[in-house]
């Protein structure tokens, strides 16, 4: 009996390698990324798409969306949405700039204050969603406009302008939050460029991805997030503090948005109150392309990262090709559709492939 069991396991193990790979939930997003990368690598070859500098173009762009996309992905796995990030990005930058520029605070005190403000707004989002049961799309749509309004009003009242300068913040803060980084190994002829002109936000993105990977896939909290998105009622019955968890996730996405706003302000030495409506859609596209199920309960951090990379390439890559730049949006729309269909297929493989039905 035991032997039989073992041999069956081994049989499964034998045919596993490829199937096992396809079964991984991020398989769809990874395959999409490779396809898009090869496509633009080929068509963009002549315009240096694959060089260090060329890659930085889309990596820098992707990093900012990516930092927000991962926590948005968490929320979507938990069955919620947060579109207030569009106004939280400028809010993060302005709070920092006002704190440092107007009140002369230390950069990091200002950054902490900015994070605290964002956390507070995220808390409010979460509280409204969990208390009122109004869909989070509507709640965060409302807060999006409330914050956008406050951004402009508070800026004008305090500083009399909607453009705040953020100068002389010191080399360490500049290095960590908003600078261009280049790494070249070797000297002269044998010099190898590892990367060139990558913004600090790229490295922050990697850090955020690692921390979030830990939260979702390694720590026990990940299980709670999945369970909440899969079936909230059952999750609550299983003793998961669904409301508190949801509020925490809204705080996370708000703080991620503020972080992006701060890196942008630090890099540009100026913070603007312009609401970034584009980033709302961009982050959602990245998450969906990354294989997160809109209805909740399914998704991975790795998938979201792949989705963001894919999106970054498609958004920026067209400049490296001979295609008309006006087709950019069309490419993104097609990408989204194809990605969703592909992810559905891969998800079906994931749920059914190993069932090994004996009828």
């Amino acid at each position, binding site marked *: 009996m035991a032997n039989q069991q073992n041999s069956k396991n081994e049989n499964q193990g034998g045919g596993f390698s490829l199937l096992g790979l396809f079964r991984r939930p991020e398989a769809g997003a990874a395959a999409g990324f490779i396809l898009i990368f090869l496509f633009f690598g080929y068509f963009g070859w002549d315009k240096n798409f694959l060089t260090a500098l060329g890659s930085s173009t889309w990596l820098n762009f992707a990093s900012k969306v990516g930092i927000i996309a991962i926590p948005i992905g968490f929320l979507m796995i938990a069955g919620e949405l947060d579109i207030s990030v569009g106004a939280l990005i400028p809010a993060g930058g302005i709070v920092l700039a006002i704190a440092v520029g107007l009140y002369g605070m230390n950069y990091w005190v200002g950054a902490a204050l900015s994070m605290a403000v964002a956390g507070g707004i995220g808390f409010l989002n979460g509280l409204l969603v969990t208390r009122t049961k109004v869909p989070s799309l509507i709640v965060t749509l409302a807060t999006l406009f409330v914050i956008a309004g406050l951004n402009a009003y508070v800026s004008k009242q305090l500083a009399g302008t909607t453009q705040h300068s953020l100068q002389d913040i010191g080399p360490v803060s500049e290095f960590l939050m908003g600078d261009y980084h280049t790494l070249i190994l070797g000297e002269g002829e044998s010099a190898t460029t590892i990367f060139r002109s990558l913004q600090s936000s790229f490295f922050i993105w990697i850090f955020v991805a690692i921390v979030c990977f830990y939260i979702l896939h390694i*720590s026990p909290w990940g299980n709670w997030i*999945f369970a909440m998105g899969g079936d909230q009622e*059952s999750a609550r019955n299983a003793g998961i503090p669904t409301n508190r968890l949801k509020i925490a996730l809204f705080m996370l996405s708000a703080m991620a948005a503020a972080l992006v706003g701060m890196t942008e302000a630090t890099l540009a030495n100026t913070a603007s109150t312009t609401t970034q409506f584009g980033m709302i859609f961009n982050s959602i596209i990245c998450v969906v392309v990354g294989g997160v199920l809109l209805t909740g309960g399914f998704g991975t951090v790795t998938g979201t990262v792949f989705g963001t990379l894919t999106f970054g390439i498609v958004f920026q890559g067209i400049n490296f090709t001979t295609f008309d730049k006006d087709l950019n949006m069309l490419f993104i729309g097609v990408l989204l559709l194809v990605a969703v269909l592909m992810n559905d297929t891969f998800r079906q493989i994931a*749920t059914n*492939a190993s069932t090994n039905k004996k009828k």
Partner: protein
Amino acid sequence: MSKTAVLELRHVDKSFGPIDVLHDISLKVNEGEVLCLLGDNGAGKSTLIKTLSGVHQPTRGQMLMDGQEVSFARPRDAQDRGIATVHQFGGTYPLMSVGRNFFVGAEPTKGWGPFKVFDREKANEIAVKSVQDFGITRITDGDRLVGGLSGGERQSLAIARAVYFGARVLILDEPTAALGVKQAAHVLRIVNEAKRRGLAVIFITHQVMHAMAVGDHFAVLIRGAIAADFRKGEKTREEIADLMAGGESMAELEANIDGAA
């Protein structure tokens, strides 16, 4: 068998505002016994389950566990006392793995302090073993997504989970309703296994065949009241079916009950 019942209801009424849903329900379920609650739709079965599992509180009457009066303010209180409710899909999450499903809300961890790590291997091992102990030998891989399992297997997973976490009373809400014949037989085997392990099982169904296969004790619920209460072998299948079908006319039912008494 003179031991006290694990769970007992005494003259429980439940009303929502002016609407009475349950009248004077008295029920008992002992260890290692299956109580089948039969009733047509709208008979008050779900309200009764919700009262038992702590979602609703009885308006009047008493609930006792091991002879001690209890009251549950929340479902969690009922769970802490060992009352586990398994609904049609058993609170399983289709897009999560067997191991993760099994331990939702009670994840095994390794590591220390803030660096706790979900112990996937341990979770998978325990989950697969528990499910296999219930006779579901087809589940061998704890990483498999639950969505790929059959309805019966998902039920079994939920029941195995409840047992693993120390349930003493298992409330099964129409576990066989959405299943085919083979799958239903599967679930019934698991109900028997739970009974063999000494659990008190409350099995809610409107399929008389399924009830007859596992039940020791039967209660027919009609319009919120217990219309008949009898033990295994006291009534034939036809009689029970008549009882349930006769729910439309109370007079006929009362005649039936009188006839049996």
